[in-house]
């Protein structure tokens, strides 16, 4: 079993000519993405790209955490704003979500990151954190990183907001 199964089979299979015979079909269904802005500047960045063409992406802005009755420190849900200004609940948005991308520009969204991140964690939903800031050494950015790190499977610190749509398109949001 140490010999190739078919003489030169990889050599032929990897040619441009053979690439023509790759089956052309949609190999994935639309991904259900939730993009959550955690602070005002992040919300402004998000608003500038909401009208692009997206798959099943919901653009949402964090409004407030909803603590458990009588236990202020324990979030059980959160209120989010839709682009049209209407409100929705985090728990409802996470139902059926494949990935949640949290966008922050400062450390102002620490509570928001915890509320969204925890909710994703208990539901086993993939999370990504994206911090947009020109100055990585800004203490505010460090706070944002610290806030998101426990909850984001991947954390990106981007110098320009152009990366936001680039990343979301790459992920088929």
């Amino acid at each position, binding site marked *: *079993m*140490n010999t*190739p*199964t*078919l003489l*030169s*089979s*990889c*050599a032929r*299979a*990897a*040619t*441009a000519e*053979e*690439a023509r015979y*790759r089956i052309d079909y949609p*190999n*994935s269904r639309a991904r259900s993405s939730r993009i959550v802005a955690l602070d005002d500047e992040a919300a402004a960045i998000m608003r500038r790209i909401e009208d692009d063409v997206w798959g099943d992406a919901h653009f949402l802005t964090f409004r407030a955490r909803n603590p458990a009755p009588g236990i202020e420190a324990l979030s059980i849900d959160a209120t989010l704003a839709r682009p049209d200004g209407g409100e929705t609940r985090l728990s409802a948005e996470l139902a059926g979500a494949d*990935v949640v*991308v949290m966008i922050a520009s400062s450390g102002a969204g620490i509570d928001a990151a915890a509320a969204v991140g925890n909710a994703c964690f208990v539901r086993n939903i*993939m*999370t*990504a954190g994206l911090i947009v800031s020109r100055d*990585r050494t800004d203490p505010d950015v*460090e706070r944002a*990183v*610290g806030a998101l*790190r426990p909850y*984001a*499977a*991947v*954390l*990106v*610190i*981007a*110098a*320009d907001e*152009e*990366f936001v749509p*680039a*990343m979301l*398109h*790459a*992920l*088929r949001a």
Partner: protein
Amino acid sequence: MLRKDVNDLLTRTGPDTAMGDLFRQYWMPALLAEELPENDCPPVRVKLMSERLVAFRDSEGRYGLIDEFCAHRGVSLWFGRNEEGGLRCPYHGWKYDYTGQCIEVPSEPEESGFCSKIKLKNYPLIKVGDILWTHMGDPENRPPKPEWEFATVPPEQTFTSKRWQECNWLQAMEGGIDSSHVSWLHSGALVSDPLFKGARGNKYNQGDKRPFFEVVEADGGLFIGARRNAEDGKYYWRITPWVMPSFTMIPPRGDHPVHGHFWVPIDDENCWAWSFDYHPVRALSRDERKAMQDGYGVHVKYTPGSYRPLANKDNDYLMDRAAQRRGETYSGVEGIAMQDASLQESMGPIVDRTKENLVSTDNGIIMARHRLRKAVVALRDKGETPPGVDPAHHKVRSASVVLPPDQAFVDACKEDLTVRPGVKQSSV
């Protein structure tokens, strides 16, 4: 997923392409110095970024890199006679010096000065470390010489090889910044390869196959940190630098030499995978150097007389399903370099990125593409010098460290990620 127009933009590197212009801003590896070992040695054919060239070393030791074809009848100067200060076409005796200037046309009267009107395109070729580097861009904008640490440490501390990889440069390079595949594809090598095995960090790699990632922009490119669980609630970080356009380093393991790559386009469907190993503070041991020469670690065994890997697509990479079943290799292909290359070549000459389904942990790749695209456009539209040209950007290191959970690698490891002459690499 990448739109077709962006995929074309990033993968085409020939003359008069936007990405080709970007690559031509940099000093790039062209040949191993061993390929031109002595004065008047045989010339070598070189294809870089879709340009056919010939390299030679003249009687005075000057390196020439010139258009491969004689200006007279288009004969390949690989057939040329390298003698008495130039490369002479064997067809009718036209002779060129190391700058491509024609210095003899035997059929014409010397007094006519005809030969002074003939000049082949040429590029500079300089030796830094074990490599001959070229800059194929505007001579007016020639950057300072490269200052990569692997090429500037004493010769006994470094080893470089190159191998032909039969696919576009970008899909090869993207493998160099994709840390999450190591726990899968190279899992066998972590316990068996003499240049990898034995490090404490390997057990973290093997014990946690779902690393967390942090991607941080750097002046020259990116730092990509992969975080895995270590003891006592601490994190094991493997930090991969990428410097534009195509330099990557692998985070070190124990006291093993540090490895890395340059990915250099030959044409749009082939590239050179340059692979280096060096130790910042000590000579490579005899065993280490032999392992590198024998094709372990990031190096390969060659098809004799060439820089083509012995395991290649013509022999199905010597696929060994029995070794795969025994757990010696994960994919059935032997050797870290060919485990990567076999899969990257299987994608096709230029992978169709409109079909891919990236996930969040691919963000290093997503960001690298984004930065390449931005740099290409800024160069094309505004003439901006891209990141990575400045030799200050060359002074990076990879690192593997264990950190408390609240520390950002990019802050905690600022010094570890910077070249510090005489200071050992930070490695677990």
